[in-house]
């Protein structure tokens, strides 16, 4: 998600800040790149069992500056809630709770096994496990699974169209959610305990989408409305007992939980996991350092980095995230409707400086392409660095090439135009924006940087009516696939002129690119490796087309209290709370 962070100033009446916006979840990456400082590498509980372990028990206390939206797992799209829901709910599949790259893989969760694709990838038949119970004691049945998929549409889940629109019958459900049946799309067979999915087209990411929180399985009688603060029963080792977005959240063990698959859903160590809301990010750091809390959710403010390194290095964990900062440029508005201008920006931008504003090389790495390091389809490629071009691409970014950039701008004849850069008013983006304004002026533009309210900026820059020329945005993967950075951000189907929800911010709709990503998606259904090659090709095409300037890939800096042991991260979520030791 685009995360919240507090930043305020001290006028008497007026205040300023930054806030929450839509959400995404965070993908973390292999430990090769991570700087975990515990003596022993963290491990999942042996056999998924924690009973009898000396570390079992206690309360894991988490802190965040504010609540995390609705507790309805099929609607919430906020990584703060999602990282907790991982230990509360299950879907038919789940991302493996294994270390490193292995956690990118979907594995069977409530399903007995991952079914092979049938009908050329149009049909999947899942066999439902027996004996798994919701936290209210009822056994998970076929009708629960079917009802949960209907409910995605009944409650207008954010991803209903994006992720689940490819199921047969989804079209009708999107138009009229209340009477959604998904007839012919999701078919349950009570006797055989199977659920059969029929798709309109083959989908290489189908298991990823089933593992996404909006596809969690809830009891069939869960009301078809946003449940607000009342979390429905789930199947994981914990159940949410209370939630108040202004104060906190409590969980306790799910008494009906039994381990059925250690890599899908292991049992937890702490007896309780609680969230307290209301501290500023600075206060969260101090409270975690003091041991008042065990884990802080929000980003550590930059001025605390020195202190963490000096005094609390053992309590800090740095992990790569599938998240990037980039500059979307509107390909339909001057001067960025000229490809030379967009390429000039890519040559001119000092990615090292952007890295500095995020906390230096330990906190982020420079990025010159759209697919971040660690995802299939990433191949080191950088034509936009000093001494490189499209015919002689470098493998990594070294320095900006201002001379070439100025030449391209001169060729385009756009010098002297007025350019407004729209950034959210958070410390990091404002710092980046101020720097980029300098760069734009140096290129000869009459440049302004406009920080606007964080809550609005994300939707504001999407709407073509607002005529935003260039902006700063950050993006996290929903699941570890390159399409989340290519098709999602630049596909024609995600460009909706005049709408606040048009995530193709630059407005690109390029047919060679479209053909390539469709081919990549299709090939990936049967051959992941060949698919990855095509994704890499699509990325290069995009880099050349330059609808954006990729800036950095950032890392997640996680601070825990002194007493926390077995800090275990999986790629998609932050710390896996069920595996932390507080004893």
């Amino acid at each position, binding site marked *: 998600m685009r995360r919240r962070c507090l*930043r*305020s*100033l*001290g*006028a*008497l*009446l*007026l*205040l*300023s800040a930054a806030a929450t916006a839509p959400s995404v979840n965070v993908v973390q990456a292999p430990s090769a790149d991570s*700087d975990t400082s515990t003596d022993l590498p963290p491990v999942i509980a042996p056999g998924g069992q924690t009973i009898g372990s000396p570390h079992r028990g206690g309360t894991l206390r988490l802190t965040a500056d504010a609540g995390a939206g609705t507790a309805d797992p099929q609607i919430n799209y906020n990584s703060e809630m999602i990282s907790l829901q991982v230990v509360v709910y299950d879907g038919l599949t789940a991302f493996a709770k294994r270390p490193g790259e292995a956690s990118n893989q979907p594995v069977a969760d409530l399903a007995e096994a991952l079914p092979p694709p049938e009908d050329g990838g149009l049909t999947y038949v899942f066999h439902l496990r027996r004996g798994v119970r919701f936290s209210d004691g009822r056994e998970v049945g076929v009708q629960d699974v079917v009802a949960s998929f209907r409910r995605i549409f009944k409650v207008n889940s954010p991803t209903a169209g994006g992720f689940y629109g490819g199921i047969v019958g989804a079209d009708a459900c999107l138009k009229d959610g209340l009477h959604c049946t998904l007839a012919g799309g999701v078919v349950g067979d009570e006797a055989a305990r199977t659920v059969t999915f029929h798709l309109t087209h083959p989908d290489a990411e189908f298991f990823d989408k089933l593992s996404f929180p909006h596809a969690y399985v809830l009891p069939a009688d869960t009301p078809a409305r946003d449940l607000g603060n009342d979390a429905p029963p789930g199947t994981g080792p914990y159940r949410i007992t209370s939630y108040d977005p202004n104060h906190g959240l409590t969980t306790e063990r799910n008494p009906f939980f039994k381990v059925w698959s250690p890599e899908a859903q292991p049992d937890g160590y702490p007896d309780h996991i609680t969230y307290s809301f209301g501290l500023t990010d*600075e206060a969260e750091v101090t409270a975690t350092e003091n041991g008042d809390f065990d884990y802080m959710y929000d980003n550590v*403010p*930059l*001025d*605390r*980095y*020195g*202190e*963490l*390194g*000096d005094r609390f*290095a053992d309590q*800090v964990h*740095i992990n790569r995230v599938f998240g990037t900062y980039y500059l979307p440029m509107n390909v339909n508005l001057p001067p960025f409707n000229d490809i030379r201008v967009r390429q000039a920006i890519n040559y001119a931008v000092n990615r*090292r*400086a952007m890295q*500095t*504003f995020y*906390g*230096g*090389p*330990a*906190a982020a790495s420079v990025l010159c392409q759209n697919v971040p390091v660690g995802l299939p389809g990433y191949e080191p490629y950088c034509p936009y660095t000093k001494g490189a071009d499209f015919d002689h691409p470098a493998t990594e970014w070294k320095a900006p090439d201002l001379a070439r950039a100025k030449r391209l701008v001169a060729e385009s004849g756009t010098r002297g135009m007025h350019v*407004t850069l*729209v950034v959210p*008013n958070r*410390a990091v983006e*404002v*710092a980046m*924006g*101020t*720097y980029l*304004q*300098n760069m734009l002026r140096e290129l000869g533009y009459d440049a*302004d*940087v*406009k*920080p*606007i*309210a964080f809550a*609005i900026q994300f939707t*504001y820059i999407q709407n073509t009516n*607002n*005529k*935003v020329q260039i902006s700063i945005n950050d993006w996290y993967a929903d699941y570890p696939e390159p399409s989340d950075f290519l098709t999602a951000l630049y596909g024609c189907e995600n460009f909706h002129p005049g709408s606040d929800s048009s995530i193709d911010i630059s407005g690109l709709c390029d047919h060679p690119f479209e053909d390539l990503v469709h081919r990549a998606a299709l090939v990936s259904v049967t051959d992941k490796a060949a698919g990855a090659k095509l994704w890499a090709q699509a990325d290069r095409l995009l880099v050349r087309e330059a609808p954006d300037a990729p800036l950095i890939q950032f890392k997640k*800096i996680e601070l825990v209290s002194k007493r926390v042991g077995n800090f275990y991260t999986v790629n998609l979520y932050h710390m896996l709370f069920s595996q932390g030791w507080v004893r």
Partner: protein
Amino acid sequence: MSAALPVPVRVQGPWEAALRALLRIPSAVASLAVLLLLVLLSLSAPFYAHDVAHTDPFESDVAATVTLHGEEVPVMQPNHNRLHLGLTPIGPTWHADADLLGADSQGRDVAARLLYGGRNSLLISAAASVLCIVLAALVGICAGFFGGIVDVVLSRLMDIMWAIPVYLFAISLSIVTVSQGLQLGPFTIRSDNLLLPIAIIALVYVPYAARPIRGRVLSLRQAEFVLAARCLGVPRARILLRDILPNVSTTLIVLAPLVMALALLAESALSFLSIGVQAPAASWGTIIEDGQGLIYTRPAVAIAPGLAIVVTVLALNVLGDGLRDALDVRETGRRG
């Protein structure tokens, strides 16, 4: 009660007399000198930046270096601990040619920005406080003196202004002015027009200053000298000008520097929403804002402009005291 009763003949104009009286008070003269110095310092900003500090305070450069004790030192200093996390801008060096007061997180010289910032801050806050006090005096005196429906309407209007969330308006205004300016009839006001923060800040504090003035006027209008003037058939306007205004001037003179101090801080909140002072330009408020992100490492960034505000407001207060003494005939009479 000589001041209150209309005196037909005066040897000297009242303002001239007041000025002479003012210049006889040493503390007032000193504060005038301090204010003048502040203005001069702000005006000398380009000279300081160019010829003393040899830096461009509007140019972000995180790779910059400065020469300190003959050594080349990076302005953004990496943290040399085990995690290598984060960079810290250089702290105060006390060398005018090498970031005298340190650098901010963009690697810019804080001292030079402080001088440049003084221009915007002094202009905005002075204009806003004068505008605010004038409006407040107008509203407060009218509401208090005329009473009745005038009072009800004005007072409730003040209530609305005081209760409304200014920040919401500021957000709205900032977004309205992102691409094009604010259209007011034939005029277009761009968001970097300093009239916007001046007007907003002035309006925000009008109820704050008007309310006590109204309270004063309520009791003044029944005072003996006002009643006497009314009985004598003196026109209302004349009573307002001659009797009421001088008597609320104490409150006005005290409030003006206070409003100015509040304006100096409020300005930064608006500029954070890109209304008024815009990046890369500086004001004292925006430097404090920058410094708030460096509280734990470089507190000097926020403290330096804070001190500048204290000095300005202090000088204004002392000047206000002197002005009041100079204007108050009773006082000078007794002293003289």
